[in-house]
């Protein structure tokens, strides 16, 4: 059951109750562990290193399957670039969705640079509006970088960081051009 407390017992800026509106209440609810385990539970909960090891093993077990999916996804990216840059809205949506998935997952499965390149591409697409799609240079270079990172995973980290820097400069130059054109 929730227990009511005065604001002064709780953390954050809310602890100063002087400016607390009268219709705001502060509540402490028992933790899920307290509710599930009752009196057996004694905080704090101990982390179990065996569980963490098993979770990491689970990720390693999925890496091969993900690597195959990643190859298919980058092939699809290459197919989608041209129609997307020519204005096909469905192709744009699918291209962004693929890059967004790579941004979220590639790093987890041992492809951190793919994730970084995909993150850079997503950041560009989220802010470029239609003009940025029409100038396909930035998108093409990102897709090439992603493909290269998958095909050559042992490339020197310094080289991939240089590529990332170059892509960022390319994005900035593209933005400047669009601003000039108004």
């Amino acid at each position, binding site marked *: 059951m*929730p227990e009511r407390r005065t604001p002064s017992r*709780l*953390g*954050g*800026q*809310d602890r100063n109750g002087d400016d607390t*509106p009268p*219709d*705001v*209440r*502060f*509540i*402490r*609810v*028992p*933790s*899920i*562990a*307290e509710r*599930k*385990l009752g009196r*057996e*539970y*004694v*905080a*704090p*909960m*101990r*982390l*179990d*290193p*065996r*569980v*963490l090891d*098993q*979770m*990491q*093993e*689970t*990720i390693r077990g*999925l890496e091969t399957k*993900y690597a195959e*999916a990643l190859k298919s996804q980058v092939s699809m990216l290459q197919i989608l670039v041209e129609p997307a840059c020519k204005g096909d809205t469905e192709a744009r949506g699918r291209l962004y969705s693929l890059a*967004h*998935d790579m*941004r*979220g*997952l*590639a*790093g*987890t499965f041992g492809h*951190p640079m793919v*994730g970084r390149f995909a*993150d850079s591409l*997503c950041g560009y697409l989220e802010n470029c509006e239609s003009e940025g799609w029409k100038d396909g240079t930035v998108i093409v270079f990102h897709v090439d970088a992603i493909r290269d990172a998958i095909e050559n995973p042992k490339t020197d980290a310094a080289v991939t960081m240089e590529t990332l820097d170059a892509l960022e400069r390319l994005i900035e130059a593209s933005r400047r051009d669009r601003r000039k054109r108004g």
Partner: protein
Amino acid sequence: MNGGPTSADPDFFGHLKVLIVEDSVEMRNLLTALLETMGVADIVQTRDGKSGLAAFARHKPDIIITDGAMMPMDGYEMTRAIRAAGDAEGANPDVPILMISGHVGRDKVTHARDQGVTDYIAKPLSADTLYKAIVAAVSKPIHFVEKPGYRGPSPRRSLDARRS
């Protein structure tokens, strides 16, 4: 290792029901595999905020793990709806909501906090980060603010994205 009722092991996680709201099938599969490895046996999956809301009311999960950007309803809007709904037909209004997102800018994290997200995890996800976030969500007492139209974590607290 001496497991027991107060350690974050499969015996404990077997008591939990977790709702995953995520539009990426690969991410749903990854989260499901990791939760199953932790021992969570009761996992519900949905692919957007709207179906997540329906699943929240129907399945009454102990924890929600949600993506941020989804269509037609995103994780932020779903979170706001849950925090505004109160006791939705018996569903737990105090449910911890963990948002996992590739958007880690301060504005997005602040927006998530303001909607009532409990914790914010940056992609790419690691086993370590997920495990610790879930253990924190289930083991810490829940301090909530209740005001008209909102019941959830304080929108004035500090919240940073957990990074792997």
